């Protein structure tokens, strides 16, 4: 609406309010934080699609033991500790995911895009008895209040986001490191042990000259097939760990720049970490 159409009193208010509002809200675009958080969530969620777990490795080890003993009847196994290891990993994963959910929700620009169209319409067309409201003025007041409302809530939101990111940084990095330790360290370690156990088992069959060439070849094939399967699982874990490291770097960038989160440099850095993550997510999905 053109400003010249307003009454002089309203015109002054309008200029004053718009000035304040614009100065408060002009730089508040937190989409890059929201985008980075969403990609982080997508990356962390790849945990759910992993083809291995502590329990699975334990179960495979137990079955391998049954094969070694040529006994498929007594197959009791105790994987309680491994179940516990999975639960702990899942707790850390869920906590990290929830944090980024909150960050993503809070930083989306749409959150504070308030809509006062209904209010304007009612005020402008309503019958208030002897009170007559000028439609143009109503629209102007409404637009100004929306802008001001957004400016105030955005400033508050930015201040709170800075607080959350600063407070969460230490604990989040620790959780991500431990998640990495469990997946790329401990679970990969267990798979390395499994590889060694398989070699320990298959070696003598492949070398045994009392067996036929066909049997020995089949044993060797079985061995290499199992090793390839484990290699693929380890590759998944390694890629997920790379995603976790990108998340840590992105959050570090936010933490380092918490005073000026909307700067171009931060946007650029987050975009870089986000696109690295997207590449890793894509390659995980193609595995």
């Amino acid at each position: 609406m053109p400003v010249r159409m307003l009454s002089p009193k309203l015109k002054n208010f309008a200029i004053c309010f718009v000035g304040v509002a614009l100065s408060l809200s002009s730089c508040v675009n937190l989409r890059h934080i929201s985008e980075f958080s969403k990609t982080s969530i997508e990356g962390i969620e790849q945990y759910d699609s992993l083809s291995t777990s502590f329990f699975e490795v334990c179960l495979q080890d137990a079955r391998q033991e049954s094969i070694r003993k040529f006994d498929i009847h007594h197959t009791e196994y105790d994987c309680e500790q491994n179940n516990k290891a999975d639960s702990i990993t899942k707790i850390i994963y869920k906590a990290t995911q929830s944090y980024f959910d909150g960050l993503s929700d809070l930083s989306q620009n749409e959150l504070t895009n308030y809509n006062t169209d209904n209010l304007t319409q009612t005020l402008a067309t309503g019958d208030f008895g002897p009170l007559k409201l000028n439609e143009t003025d109503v629209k102007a007041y409404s637009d100004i209040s929306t802008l001001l409302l957004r400016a105030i809530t955005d400033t508050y939101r930015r201040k709170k986001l800075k607080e959350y990111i600063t407070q969460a940084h230490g604990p989040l990095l620790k959780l991500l490191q431990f998640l990495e330790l469990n997946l790329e360290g401990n679970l990969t370690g267990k798979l390395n042990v499994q590889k060694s156990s398989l070699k320990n088992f298959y070696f003598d069959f492949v070398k045994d000259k009392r067996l036929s060439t066909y049997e020995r070849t089949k044993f060797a094939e079985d061995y290499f097939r199992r090793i390839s399967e484990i290699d693929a699982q380890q590759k998944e874990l390694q890629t997920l760990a790379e995603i976790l490291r990108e998340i840590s770097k992105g959050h570090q960038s936010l933490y380092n720049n918490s005073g000026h989160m909307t700067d171009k440099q931060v946007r650029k850095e987050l975009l870089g970490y986000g696109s690295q993550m997207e590449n890793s997510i894509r390659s995980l999905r193609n595995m």
Partner: protein
Amino acid sequence: MAHRWKIAFVRYAICESKSTFTCENKAVKKGSHLYYFKNMPNLKAQQVKELADNLLRMTNALGDYRYENSEHLSENENWQIKELHRQQLEDTTELYTLSAVLIMEEVEMSLQKIETITKETIALYKKLGTVQHVLDRATSILTLATAIIGLNVKGITSSIKSLLSPVSK
């Protein structure tokens, strides 16, 4: 006979890694060094993982020795090393699990902090979202008032319905 010395050496190395245990000439009892690690005070998850990595390297050295010298080993020697190797691998995999379980003690504080912050972000998100609801609710009330002033029965009904709808609550 040189390989016998090598076997003895590898066994000695593995036994030495357990510090407090005497292995003598037999295979180490299953679980013995796990008991030791579990009861070692202040052992962190990362340290247990590193111990497991080292144990795996040493254990694999034993396996490699068998693979490379299988033709020179007697059946009994081969079986002995194979069993020792297998048992060590069983213990090593348990060490990795132990490290993963130990993590819980170390992340407890961080988990609590993150959960608190997450709750705060959700609360703020709801609060900011409520602003729109308040705006809508104010509009509904105003619509009702307008409808009453204008003696519009149809408008009154639809305004009340709108006020009672879950979104505007």
